[in-house]
């Protein structure tokens, strides 16, 4: 870490999680102390909490542009919302045994789908091109051919690694035309992309509190009225029996407040935050050779940029950034302890020479332009330092034909 007495560390990992807004902390605190009632109780302790719960629901409703507040179901996280949505669609339509999703979903969807495949379900994973874009013709074809067999389409609104935005509203309409349910994992998109769900064909949507300055461990499943549904957790009548379990009141109140703030900051995200992101990317690309942004740069979240640094490895970059007081994340295999670099980078066909060196910078409204300049200043020497160590890098550029010059005898 840099000297903590002089400079604050720069946090550019907001797609992983965000700081809880101080205003959000303030509204949630009483729910640990004086407002400890159970919202289901008849007495006044519970009654008051019940009213707050309704207010939080309305705050979420407003941000999402939802018609009825009863369409908001509070859950424990984005992952639970994703699982509930997909499993509900399968349970409610047992005769339908196929799912459409994409190769670049978050593990919250992909791992579940892989698991379901083992249980005999068929999963159609839409591929992406080199910029991470979907082929809607492929989607239309599968929808048409398999319409009667598809239980649900689940496509993320925006990708967590690259920020690439998917045309989910259009895709939801296509699904509706084929009479197929549509779910979107909007965990990264909520608060950054304006939404008006009542005027879309989206049936279910997942969001997660900790990506928009509410605490970890609270999420929402939007469930359009009339959508066939089977709960994941059965038990008490909380959330109208659609998600049993006593409400995590403090976090729900916090999420409500965070949604209200997110609505207010939506414009700032798409102007000021976007300007900082653009400056960061431009500054890095201008001063470092052999690096490029990944994903669909014309069509991505305003806060995200993912840059691939060739011939060096992501974890090593992160460790040096961390030492310089900069927090980011990487799609390298080594950061996750797996052997393959990120499935998102592989799906886009990013070459191995670059895929291991992808770094995601994800901003929030708490970042400043000064911080961007600090990062722009720090990155070139970090990259140079690692390239100097790399057997794939010569005096001032990649060695020619690395496969030949660097030649392990057994390769």
């Amino acid at each position, binding site marked *: 870490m840099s000297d903590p007495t002089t400079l604050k560390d720069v946090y550019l990992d907001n797609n992983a999680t965000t700081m809880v807004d101080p205003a959000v902390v303030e509204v949630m605190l009483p729910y640990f102390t004086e407002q400890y009632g159970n919202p289901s109780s008849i007495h006044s302790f519970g009654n008051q909490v019940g009213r707050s719960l309704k207010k939080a629901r309305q705050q979420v409703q407003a941000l999402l542009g939802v018609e009825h507040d009863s369409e908001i179901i509070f859950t424990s996280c984005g992952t639970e919302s994703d699982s509930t949505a997909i499993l509900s669609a399968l349970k409610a339509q047992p005769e339908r045994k196929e799912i459409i999703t994409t190769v670049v979903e978050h593990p919250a969807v992909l791992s579940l789908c892989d698991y379901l495949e083992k249980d005999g379900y068929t999963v159609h994973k839409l591929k992406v091109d080199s910029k991470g874009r979907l082929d809607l013709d492929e989607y239309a074809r599968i929808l048409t051919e398999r319409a009667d067999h598809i239980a649900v389409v689940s496509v993320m609104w925006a990708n967590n690694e690259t920020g690439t935005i998917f045309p989910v509203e259009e895709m939801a309409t296509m699904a509706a035309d084929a009479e197929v349910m549509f779910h979107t994992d909007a965990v990264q998109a909520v608060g950054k992309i304006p939404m008006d769900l009542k005027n879309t064909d989206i049936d279910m949507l997942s969001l997660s509190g900790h990506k928009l300055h509410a605490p970890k461990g609270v999420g929402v499943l939007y469930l359009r009225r009339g959508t066939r549904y089977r709960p994941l957790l059965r038990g008490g009548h909380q959330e109208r029996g659609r998600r049993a379990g006593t409400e995590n009141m403090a976090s729900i109140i916090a999420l409500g407040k965070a949604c209200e703030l997110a609505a207010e900051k939506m414009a700032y995200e798409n102007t000021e935050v976007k300007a900082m992101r653009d400056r960061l990317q431009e500054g890095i690309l201008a001063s470092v050779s052999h690096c490029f942004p990944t994903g669909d740069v014309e069509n991505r979240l305003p806060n995200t940029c993912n840059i691939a640094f060739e011939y060096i490895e992501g974890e090593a970059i992160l460790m040096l950034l961390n030492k310089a007081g900069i927090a980011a994340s990487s799609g390298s295999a080594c950061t996750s302890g*797996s052997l393959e670099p990120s499935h998102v980078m592989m799906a886009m066909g990013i070459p191995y020479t670059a895929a291991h060196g992808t770094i995601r910078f994800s901003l929030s409204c708490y970042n400043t332009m000064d911080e961007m300049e600090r990062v722009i200043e720090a990155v070139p020497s970090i990259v140079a330092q690692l390239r100097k160590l790399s*057997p794939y890098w010569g005096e001032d550029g990649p060695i020619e034909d690395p496969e030949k010059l660097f*030649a392990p005898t057994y390769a």
Partner: protein
Amino acid sequence: MWDYSDTVKEHFFNPKNARAMDDADAIGDVGSIQCGDALRLTLKVNAESEVIEDAAFQTFGCGSAIASSSVLTEMIKGKTLDEALKVTNQDIASELDGLPPEKMHCSVMGREALQAAVANYRGEVWKDDHEEGALICKCFAVDAVMIEDTVRANNLRTVEDVTNYTKAGGGCSACHEGIEEILTRVLAETGEAFNARASRQKLHASKEKPPVPGKGMSNLERIKRIERVIEMVRPQLQRDRGDVTLVDVDGDTVFINLVGACSGCQMASLTISGIQQQMMEDLGEFVRVVPVPANHAATTGVTA
């Protein structure tokens, strides 16, 4: 981020001997950019004494790959080639005050680069036989390839078997689902179905029925069974560049000789207790497994 030791961090932030060596006498290249890890080790070797006078590295890889390379160059400088070859991946990891299980392969890569460099110096061909798979058991750093090979070679059928042979699954149990998947896949190759219940029944059965005492067995049969257990564990040790041989049997004591990477390292005691357990299961009697030098018991005929 990983919980790296201070020594790992020190070697990563201030790597020793990180440079290209133009006049190297020996070059060892291992890894590839595909796997995200590649290391070139270069040595300056005294032609007369075979002492490594200088060592340098270039590494493409994560923090622990760079740290492993750096510490390796420090460890082998001043050693003869033969002495250097005795450095195991465990030694590299220990010198770094430990590596997370997911990162042990970085130390293996260091050791392989060293072997490749020595082979290069001596004009030999070095063959890498180390295929790596996805890490399944994080407690004991066992990967999928190792489990698959062991299941195939020994006709294993249950998660318990896999744990006995490879240690995988012997810790937190989180990987049991993954091990069952491997069993299902490998058993399917021979048209067999994985039966999860088999292991549970066996577990209860072995508790209810006392093991058949080995006394009913002829001496010859008994030795044969002991040998068979030794043969079964050998491939696994050889993969870690070690080996085990049976030296002698005296009453309930079985003398074995552990060589190579497994002797002396902290895994040795785990290995011995694994062999002992396997023998007891096979023989149905209590035996004590004692490691000895290769010529020990055979000549002295010691008793336990």
